[in-house]
């Protein structure tokens, strides 16, 4: 009966079903696209980090790209309880091929990494790559720069350019996330030579024997001696989680708005078919269908529509995500190896799919209300207005009062706890929806008054139509309102962020006319000896002065800090637009003296620091300094 009746429905109301299905699919696509884009950011980096660490549980790691002496790898290997270990060198470099250049993270590895099953080496016997000398590039990097196995590429690192042969290009499912990650793999010795870090590594991955985790960690801490970190092998993922927070907040807000817009879109799409659905239900009941049968029928039809539309929505969202949403902020891509691969978790699919089906089910509830015991079976035929599409005055008043009360409560909460601003914003968007029927009723009352003065028959007809289908009109107004709110809230936030970054960047780089460095190294963390290069530039005609800058990334607790040093001759030591507390002139003077630092508000808040306070940081290779 269920299939038969739904087949009839599809035949008799195909256009309406398609319309409703399209609305739901668009809603699911919006939600899925945003969710995938959000999870892909951490997941692609996470997948690469997991591939690098393999079966290692713990690592001895440098706090900065400067690394530590390779000799420690032998010491770690001989520690009691260590099953296997591997030294790794990681450094950002530029690789250039026939088609262009890109920034990648150089991974210098030893054969010991095979024992950890890292970097797809577990597929060694199944066609995995061999440590053949030159560079091994993932397919996405090779494709971007126009490299292929056997060809030569240029590696720009540490102020030098090296021509290196491409030993292999990784593609296919054997290497997973590695194929789409911004990395270049080389034997440790080759990597050390290319980045000019002879005898240095940045981390040692360790897999303890079963039950020896605590013992190994203790031994590693002893070796670290306060100058190196001992962390879980996938610690970088936690650092990324921290760094990604500002981006995540805007994405979360956008996700929440998308869910709301999506739900309203689905609701509105369903509302278009609702009068006819209600009449159909009333017909069936008058013919002798009981409540259980009708409920089963409504649920089945909503489920069928929801499932099909949500599946289409997931497919659309997948395309939407890769085409529009999957953009990695530059500041993250420069500090973490975030891949281009779109990662889709089963939970993301389930969440978007579930939202679509749930929205369809909820939006289909109106005919179920007609099944209420006290309601006449043929009530739908006797209603005035757009047959079940009106909102009565009492409901409008109640919603209005609830909306006003909610706005007051949310505003009070946000004023007391500013940290709840984003949650409050979403809550305000929701509560504002409650006011729409009241606003709508007000406008509907005002329009006839205007009509008396304007004498427009079209206005009268429009008002009548709006009143007759007020539910649908309110849903449409809700979508429009949320869309405007979303674009203003998100667009405004993003605009602020971009304007702030642009201004800070302009001021930071404005201290010199020409910068010499590695491409896309926005943090100035790639180091090289300026020596001869600086002298040669200084001799060039028209050059007034040459100054050296150095940035660095330092892992401290749960954060990856950007440390930057600039010469005291610079006319500005900090960007004026970025100053929140303190006096610019005094800060500049103190920074030039040395021994002083300007810190971000996030760092200051975390450590409860005020202007003039002292703080200490662990140094890359020595005990903490204040």
């Amino acid at each position: 009966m269920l299939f038969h009746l739904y087949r009839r429905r599809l035949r008799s109301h195909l256009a309406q079903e398609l319309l409703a299905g399209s609305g739901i699919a668009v809603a699911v696509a919006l939600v899925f696209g945003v969710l995938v884009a959000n999870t892909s950011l951490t997941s692609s980096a996470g997948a690469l980090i997991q591939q690098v660490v393999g079966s290692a549980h713990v690592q001895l790691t440098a706090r900065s790209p400067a690394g530590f002496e390779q000799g420690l790898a032998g010491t770690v290997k001989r520690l009691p309880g260590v099953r296997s270990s591997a030294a790794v060198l990681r450094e950002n470099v530029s690789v250039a091929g026939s088609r262009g250049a890109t920034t990648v993270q150089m991974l210098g590895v030893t054969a010991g990494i095979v024992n950890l099953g890292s970097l797809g080496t577990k597929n060694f016997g199944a066609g995995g790559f061999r440590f053949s000398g030159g560079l091994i590039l993932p397919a996405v990097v090779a494709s971007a720069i126009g490299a292929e196995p056997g060809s030569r590429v240029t590696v720009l690192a540490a102020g030098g350019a090296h021509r290196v042969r491409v030993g292999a290009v990784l593609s296919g499912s054997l290497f997973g996330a590695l194929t789409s990650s911004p990395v270049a793999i080389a034997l440790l010795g080759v990597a050390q030579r290319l980045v000019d870090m002879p005898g240095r590594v940045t981390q040692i991955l360790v897999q303890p024997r079963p039950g020896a985790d605590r013992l190994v960690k203790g031994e590693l801490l002893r070796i670290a001696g306060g100058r190196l970190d001992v962390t879980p092998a996938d610690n970088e993922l936690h650092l990324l989680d921290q760094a990604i927070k500002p981006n995540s907040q805007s994405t979360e807000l956008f996700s929440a708005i998308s869910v709301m817009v999506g739900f309203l879109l689905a609701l509105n799409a369903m509302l278009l078919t609702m009068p006819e659905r209600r009449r159909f239900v009333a017909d069936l009941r008058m013919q002798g269908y009981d409540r259980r049968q009708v409920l089963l029928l409504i649920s089945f039809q909503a489920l069928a529509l929801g499932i099909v539309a949500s599946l289409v929505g997931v497919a659309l969202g997948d395309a939407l995500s890769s085409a529009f949403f999957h953009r990695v902020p530059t500041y993250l891509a420069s500090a973490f190896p975030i891949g281009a691969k779109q990662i889709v978790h089963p939970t993301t699919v389930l969440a978007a799919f579930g939202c679509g089906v749930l929205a369809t089910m909820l939006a289909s509830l109106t005919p179920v209300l007609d099944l209420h015991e006290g309601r006449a079976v043929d009530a739908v035929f006797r209603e005035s207005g757009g047959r079940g599409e009106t909102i009565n005055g009492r409901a409008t008043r109640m919603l209005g009062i609830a909306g006003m009360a909610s706005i007051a409560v949310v505003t009070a909460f946000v004023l007391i706890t500013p940290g709840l601003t984003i949650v409050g914003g979403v809550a305000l968007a929701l509560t504002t929806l409650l006011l729409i029927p009241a606003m709508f009723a007000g406008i509907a009352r005002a329009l006839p008054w205007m009509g008396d003065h304007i004498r427009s028959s079209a206005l009268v007809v429009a008002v009548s139509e709006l009143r007759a289908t007020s539910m649908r009109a309110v849903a449409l107004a809700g979508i429009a309102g949320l869309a405007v709110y979303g674009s203003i809230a998100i667009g405004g936030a993003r605009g602020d962020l971009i304007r702030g970054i642009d201004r800070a960047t302009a001021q930071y780089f404005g201290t010199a006319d020409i910068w010499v460095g590695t491409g896309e190294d926005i943090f100035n963390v790639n180091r090289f000896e300026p020596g001869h290069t600086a002298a040669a530039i200084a001799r060039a005609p028209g050059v007034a002065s040459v100054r050296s800058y150095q940035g660095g990334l330092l892992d401290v607790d749960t954060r990856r800090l950007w440390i930057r040093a600039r010469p005291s001759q610079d006319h500005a030591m900090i960007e004026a637009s970025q100053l929140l507390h303190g006096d610019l002139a005094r800060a500049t003077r103190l920074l030039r003296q040395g021994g002083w630092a300007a810190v971000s508000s996030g760092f200051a808040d975390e450590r409860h620091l005020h202007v003039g306070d002292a703080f200490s940081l662990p140094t890359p290779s020595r005990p903490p300094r204040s």
Partner: protein
Amino acid sequence: MNQRVLELREVVKHYPSGGGETVRAVDGVSLTVSPGEFVAMYGPSGSGKTTLLLLAAALIVPETGSVLFDGCNVGELSERESARYRLRDVGFVFQSFHLMPNTSALDNATIKLTAEGLRLSEARRRARPWLERLGLGKRADHTPERLSMGERQRVAIARALVNEPRLLLADEPTGNLDSRRGRETLELLRDICHERNIPGLLVTHDPDARELMDRAYTLRDGHLTDSSDIAEPAAIVS
């Protein structure tokens, strides 16, 4: 003894009106329709005629009084029982047909049979003779959009009769038909009541229907009177 009798005893049904007043749709009506009898109910719009039909179909329950069919008080049935009563015992013909668009006449006629769990092929097999009897044998595969108003009404009648009901209710079945088609339809309903020996209750505005009925009544302000005041068509408010 055949007990398929529709009996209304002192039935009262009032509705609240928008202005806080009460509309006495049915106010102490008593009526008996015997098996094989086709009875007409006249009355102006809003006089309670349709309410009477809804009471008989157990779609609404009376405030006081009782509606009995085959000795059973249908006003006391549970929701499930009343749905079963409508499905198995009642054939209800509506003025506005309520046919599913883009669905063949045959499939429209099977709607009650599929509710009983019949396979579609079996439901179609059982519905087809009714369409043929109603002169729609060659139009069975046509959708309502391709049928005339009279044909649509006959599909609606087929749908009401396909479960071989024991009580026939018709709400203005000729309201959308020309006089010739209207007369044919009423004759058909009357013949079915007589043939199958089932009671039939018709609500109509059509004064010409009077001569086809076994009995006729007028409902005015919720009260039932005999049909002597049925006059010229111009006197009927529709």
